[in-house]
């Protein structure tokens, strides 16, 4: 019986397969997906029950979405520059990404103010409450990404420029997370837009 399981030759697996911290990050992102999946599901369920406030999304959320998308492009550019020995470009695009990230959060805040100005309050109809909560919890995850970018920035300017494998992988963690919160927002934005 055992021979069925441990059949013959030993599989020679690479002990250096997937980069474990990156794997852990993806597992963590999976759990964040479940969180927003449940919030948007709750949104749909509650909306289906009626007594739902319809309103037009303030324009500033369109602009903030563009800022977020651009920040992904700049970070990817910085990562590409890091790998291809373009030190100046790397050190230019990384702070730019950080600034764009901060601008995004500020614009979200202004968006909430704009919502409040048109009469959609957090403590009003759940149609508005959901908008605040979903975009708010997303903004909290972007702030987490801003901290990660800050660490990457400290690496960039405090350490001598050396595109080693170890530093590339650390940078890659930040890159993946930032793309993640970017696409997460794109999903949430489109969801809130078409609902």
């Amino acid at each position: 019986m055992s021979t069925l399981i441990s059949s013959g030759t030993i599989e020679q697996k690479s002990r250096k397969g997937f980069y474990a911290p990156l794997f852990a990050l993806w597992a963590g992102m999976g759990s964040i997906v479940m969180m927003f999946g449940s919030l948007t599901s709750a949104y749909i369920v509650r909306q289906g029950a009626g007594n739902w406030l319809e309103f037009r999304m303030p324009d500033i959320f369109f602009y903030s979405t563009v800022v977020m998308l651009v920040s992904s492009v700049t970070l990817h550019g910085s990562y590409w520059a890091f790998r291809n020995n373009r030190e100046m470009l790397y050190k230019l695009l990384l702070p730019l990404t950080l600034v764009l990230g901060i601008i995004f959060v500020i614009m979200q805040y202004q968006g909430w103010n704009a919502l409040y100005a048109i009469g959609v309050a957090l403590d009003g109809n759940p149609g508005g409450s959901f908008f605040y909560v979903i975009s708010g919890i997303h903004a909290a995850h972007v702030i987490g990404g801003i901290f990660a970018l800050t660490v990457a920035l400290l690496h960039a300017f405090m350490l001598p420029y050396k595109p080693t494998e170890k530093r590339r992988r650390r940078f890659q963690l930040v890159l993946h997370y930032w793309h993640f919160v970017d696409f997460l927002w794109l999903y949430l934005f489109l969801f809130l837009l078409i609902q």
Partner: protein
Amino acid sequence: MSSSHQHETDVLIREQGYDDHFHEHHHGDKFQSNFITHYIFSQDHKIIARQFLITGIFWAIIGAGMSIIFRLQLGFPDDSLAWLKPLLGKWITINDAGVGALNPEFYYALVTMHGTIIVFFVLTAGLSGTFANLLIPFQVGARDMASPFLNMLSYWFFFLASLVMFISLFLSTGPFAGGWTAYPPLSALPEASSGSGAGMTLWLVSLTFFVVSVLLGGINYVTTVLNLRTKGMSLWRMPLTVWALLVTAILGILSFPVLVSGFFLLMFDRGMGTSFYLSEIFVNGHALENVGGSPILYQHLFWFLGHPEVYIIILPAMGLTSEVLSVHARKPIFGYKAMVYSILAIGFLSFIVWAHHMFMSGVNPFISNFFVVFTLIIAVPSAVKVFNWISTLYKGNIRFTSAMLFAIGFVSMFISGGLTGIFLGNSAIDIQLHDTYFVVAHFHIVMGIAAFFGMFAGVYHWFPRMYGRFMNETMGRIHFWMTMVGAYAIFWPMHYMGMAGVPRRYYRFDTFDAFSHFAGLNQFITIAAIIVFAAQLLFVFNFFYSIWYGRKMTTQNPWGANTLEWTAPIEPIHGNWPGNLPTVHRWAYDYSKEGADKDFIQQHLPLTDKEKAEAEHH
């Protein structure tokens, strides 16, 4: 096992093991330099496992102690509880005749805290926290977890959650009292009851920390299993403990965030004036402004975690049981692959049955049908597992150690409790049985007692691996028999009460004509509960006594088990193996193999020429 054999194991690992340049990375053992980094803020999975276990034992005593107090109330509602005044203070009111009565509000708080503590702190953190930490790195042949630092944080977030919950027990308004499921509006309105104010706030804070702990731990466990297996440890060679703990961790990563979503919305309802769960409510004669919320929404979010949660509790116990049964029956686990597929099937199905907790909440009966079908389908992989456990025992060379007794007891409990699940899974029968003692009996047997049995089996079996000593077998067997008989004495009669419609969570029944004839039965249950509680104190004594005075482990592999944790040195070291990691050549269940000179062949032993020939033949 002879010491010469031990020598062979060490030589084998040294010569044929996998060289991961361990000592080049760790100059000396810098991680265990002093008391604080070794025992308190430890990053060693073996120490963290013990921290989870001992914290879990602490909570188990408190959680079970609470049940004794409310069982006294249910069994002897007219007797004086004045003697509890020194412990419970103002929650015992003494009348002019000197008879002390338990405050009804505090009765609900005790019931609520009992559930919260046992479900989350004991059977989630105490069970999978302990054994995932202890066994995953050992059994896959890793030096430690993928991130020892996050692993340490996982424990300390659990500690923080524990601290906050513990403080909530001493609030002047009492801990939360609206049931462990924390349904709104009782949980959403601070003015709804005395425990709904500060008590509920601390409950939410505590459980949010707890979820952080589960996620940090779970991410680590999954990453370790999938990335840090030693050479030759393919997925299909992993022991069932590791499979079960892997799926448990995946369930936690996917379901706990949903609970947090529900908690966030609850926090907004409590603090920010939103109406996610609240609509048209009167409190103390005043209408609240909240309009448009739905309490059912919370139930969906809660049970989307809540149902996987019961498998988060039972799967590790199943894994431990499978391993202990196989080792002590000296037989390969029957149907290894079927066991793995059953674990995966149970894990998958657990996500699409949550509404069977909500049949009576007004969900559409046609939607209920969907959940009934999938709930009943869970019986299939569960039955496969039970069949395989029993087949593993069949014609085994059984050693009735305390660990083995508890593993067999697990199978018994899982069958008894699982069968009543088939009743409750039917939405039509649930109309009668919902919120009665039948439900209480069902889940206590199938995920309370059974999970404890799996945990006890694991503690008795792996105690030597944790502390280098054995637990006392005589006390272990007394513990088993008292618990086995006593647990059935407690919960079996509850089925009859439930079928008669006796509702759960009531403060007393003697004032209801329909239920007052159960007074004798309630007394019987209470007395049985006290005896079983005493047996658990015997276990706790045995546990701590054996840490310092137990029989010493003199060989690395006292049970004659195949898994890798029994190839590591008796005196545990940081990094688990000195020098090379063991290389794995076979699955974990080569027991009583034909033609072998011993009744077990450890995983790191190379295939013999005969085995190689057979393998090619297949």
